[in-house]
């Protein structure tokens, strides 16, 4: 487990610092560094969670209570709009999508602050900065985890189906994590240049929520927009997650494809954008 590269010959470690060619650091060494310091990202996130008091029972409870209350608000909203109380099935549907959406939005908000909030660490330490958005996504993920049992409880109350297909939902959870890392990296970068990004984020997140299959099912998208829907990454990611977990329906191949493409695109694009700007972070904080 111990990183081999670090232990071989620390005394003869040769570091060369040069201007980044075309804005990007050399990817090979960068990735190795990233891997060697992964413990840092984990510990950084862990310490942040500890400092936020989420280790305590009430802290944990709040993590669950907050999205659950939000789900209840939307449940009321949907019931009023549809003029019929949907019962536990509707609530199960909303919580299923909303909890995952909450993870995405958490990654974005935490990620946006990861670099600008990294202050002295960035000024005084040399490490691959990409670890900061990684840590932000890890934090968001560990805030998402306690909501999973809540969902299953509602799933049971709603008398939902139990099928082996549900296990496939974890694929889309994985893809969402990859997607989130990309988004966290993008917003972390943007936040450095435009410090008011975080004040626009709530609106962006809210609109994105309504455009995503959280309050409606993926196959309920209005017909004229059906083809455009794949342009929303969360359409395939959250839509498929909900279909599998809630209804045990295996999504169409195009959903698998769209979700994978979006995850990879966001991850690669976000990481490259971040890395190409990384050098300037020190100068701009």
């Amino acid at each position, binding site marked *: 487990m*111990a*990183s081999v590269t*670090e232990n071989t010959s*620390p*005394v*003869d*470690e*040769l*570091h*060369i*610092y*040069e*201007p*980044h060619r075309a804005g990007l650091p050399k990817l090979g060494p960068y990735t190795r560094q990233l891997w*060697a*310091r992964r*413990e*840092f990202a984990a*510990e*950084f996130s862990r*310490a942040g969670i*500890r*400092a936020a008091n989420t280790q305590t029972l009430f802290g944990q409870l709040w993590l669950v209570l907050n999205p659950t209350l939000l789900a209840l608000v939307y449940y009321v909203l949907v019931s009023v709009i549809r003029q019929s109380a949907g019962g536990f099935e509707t609530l199960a549907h909303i919580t299923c999508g909303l909890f995952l959406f909450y993870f995405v939005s958490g990654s974005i908000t935490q990620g946006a602050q990861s670099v600008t909030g*990294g*202050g*002295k*660490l*960035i*000024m*005084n*330490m*040399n*490490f691959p900065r990409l670890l900061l958005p990684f840590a932000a996504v890890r934090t968001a993920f560990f805030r998402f985890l306690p909501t999973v049992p809540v969902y299953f409880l509602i799933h049971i109350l709603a008398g939902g189906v139990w099928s082996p297909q549900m296990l496939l939902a974890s694929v889309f959870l994985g893809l969402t994590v990859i997607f989130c890392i990309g988004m966290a990296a993008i917003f972390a970068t943007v936040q*450095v*240049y*435009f*410090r*008011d*990004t975080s004040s*626009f984020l709530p609106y962006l997140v809210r609109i994105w929520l309504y455009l995503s299959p959280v309050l409606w099912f993926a196959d309920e998208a209005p017909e004229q927009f059906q083809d455009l829907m794949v342009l929303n990454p969360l359409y395939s990611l959250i839509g498929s997650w909900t279909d599998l977990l809630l209804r045990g329906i295996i999504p169409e191949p195009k959903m698998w494809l769209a979700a994978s493409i979006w995850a990879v695109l966001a991850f690669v694009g976000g990481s490259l954008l971040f890395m190409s700007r990384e*050098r300037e972070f*020190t*100068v*701009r904080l």
Partner: protein
Amino acid sequence: MSSLSASDSTPTPTPGGTEVPVAGPEDGANPTAPHVGEPAQPPATAAAPPPVVSVQNVSITYRTTFEAAPTLKNTIVRLGRGERKVKVVDAVKNMSFDIKPGTSVGIIGANGAGKSTLMRAIAGVLPPSQGRIEVRGRISALLALGVGFNPNLTGRENVILGGLAAGLTRAEVKERADEVADFAEIGDFMDMPMRTYSSGMYQRLAFSVSVHMDPDILLVDEALSAGDASFKVKATAKMAELMESARAMFLVSHSLGSIREMCNEVLWIHKGELIMQGSPRRAIRAYTNFLKVGENAYTFEDL
């Protein structure tokens, strides 16, 4: 960039501006000035160990705007007015020097000379805009602002994080946290959030972390200024001890007394240019001459 030997570097330190009344004709008499032998050095490298730190034609520029905080709103307002104020600061200008193993380097110069910028570049925090820096060994940086401390975390958590960021393994870091606490003498505060620390405690911990990370190269940038007298003595002793095992140390200080005491080579930087690399005695004399205050008690006051 292809030629690694800093061929364009001036063989003798020349005064950067006309106002600098320093010439370095006696360079040859000084064994610790590697600058002199620049053309003769490459053949000799067969026997001599490679430099620990090699700075080759390095320039570093900051680009800043005058906005207090860069925001989208400001950008739009600025676009509307069609103005774009960007100030380019050449913090380090075409600097070249080599540091041999076992050297403890003092860096002197006025405020804004580019000392911290150079330290950040050697630590790898700030990549150069031009040129190349080679560093052999693991760096532990103690820069002016302290290591990357988060005030909401406890001292111990910060120490562990700092160690992990510096590339140590978790086991190594855990083991060291207690040594760090002992050296810093902050007692129970080790497990308290760092926002409860006094600035002196903060710096003790920062220093203690740096010296316990097994640095091959230690960078200290004006970091000892806040500690109390007894800790300063202890820190000085620790640095001297480290110098026996470390491969190099860089000490930025305005206290010429500490520089003279601890360093065996001095770099004098002025407005981003290396004016002189030489023995502490010579460089300090030249520097104080330049300051036109002479070597009086004022400049030797331990800061």
